[in-house]
């Protein structure tokens, strides 16, 4: 068999054979994507929320150190001066919340990697 004849056979065999996908293939693809999108939304919200909470906890922790070491003297400005009292309680709560949100994002992200 010469090369041209083989090429002609290959063109015909490989080119004209069309696999039959089950009916509604394209629609099923978009349905799967819709499922992925609906699972994506909690991640989209939880991840920035976790990062924001973590950043806030970090900032408050830094403030706590500055106040504790006396680098900053809290002014007597009404509710603002109370910060020194609730900082020790608020910090662990914030860190815990950020951790929980981060874990939730991680677990959701295991299914959705967009």
């Amino acid at each position, binding site marked *: 068999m010469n090369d041209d004849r083989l090429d002609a056979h290959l063109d015909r065999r490989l080119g004209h*054979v069309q*696999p*039959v*996908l*089950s009916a509604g293939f394209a629609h099923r693809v978009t349905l799967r994507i819709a499922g992925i999108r609906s699972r994506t939304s909690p991640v989209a919200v939880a991840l920035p929320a976790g990062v924001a909470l973590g950043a806030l906890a970090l900032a408050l922790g830094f403030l706590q150190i500055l106040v504790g070491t006396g680098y900053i003297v809290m002014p007597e400005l009404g509710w603002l001066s109370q910060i020194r009292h609730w900082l020790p309680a608020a910090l662990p709560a914030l860190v815990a919340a950020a951790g929980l949100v981060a874990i939730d994002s991680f677990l959701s992200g295991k299914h959705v990697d967009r």
Partner: protein
Amino acid sequence: MQPDQGGARRRDMTETVEATEATLIARTLAGDMRAFEVLVERHQGGVASFIWRIVPDRLDREEVCQEVFIKAWRNLNRFKGDAAFSTWLYTIAWRTAISLVRKRRVDYEVFDESLVHGTEDRGAETVEMNDLLDDAIATLSPEERGILTLFHARECTIEEIAAIVDRPSGTIKSILARSRSKLKAQLEETLR
């Protein structure tokens, strides 16, 4: 539904079906899933015939096809239009199919053609030749089958295939030549 609403919807669907590829991509990126469905409908045949030749297990094939289009949707914002959309899709299809075949370490000899229906001439001689050719093609590696399909069925150029499979053009030429000589040898031996 009001009659005019139905008409508007039909008009909208007709416009979607007739839209250019660039328009459909832009609309998909804007969140229009109907536009993406039309893109899938346009390319599912080409992607499927490519996947069918690489993935031997028929149960895996449709799943891989779905995976290809889902990956395309996920990464559509990275498609810059430098190459044809179909070339970009074949790149995703190639990576997905080859990765599955390598993971499964499937037996290349087991190649089921039961789901493939030809539209070509069904004369006795052609059918016999097609069967022989299918048997010969099945003995090639998934990579060789994929590259052969891109060249003969999808009419991709050597450069396009090189971009799809991420290999130099020279390597593609060698793989094509090697595949052809394997097929030729096998067919000659069978026909002898």
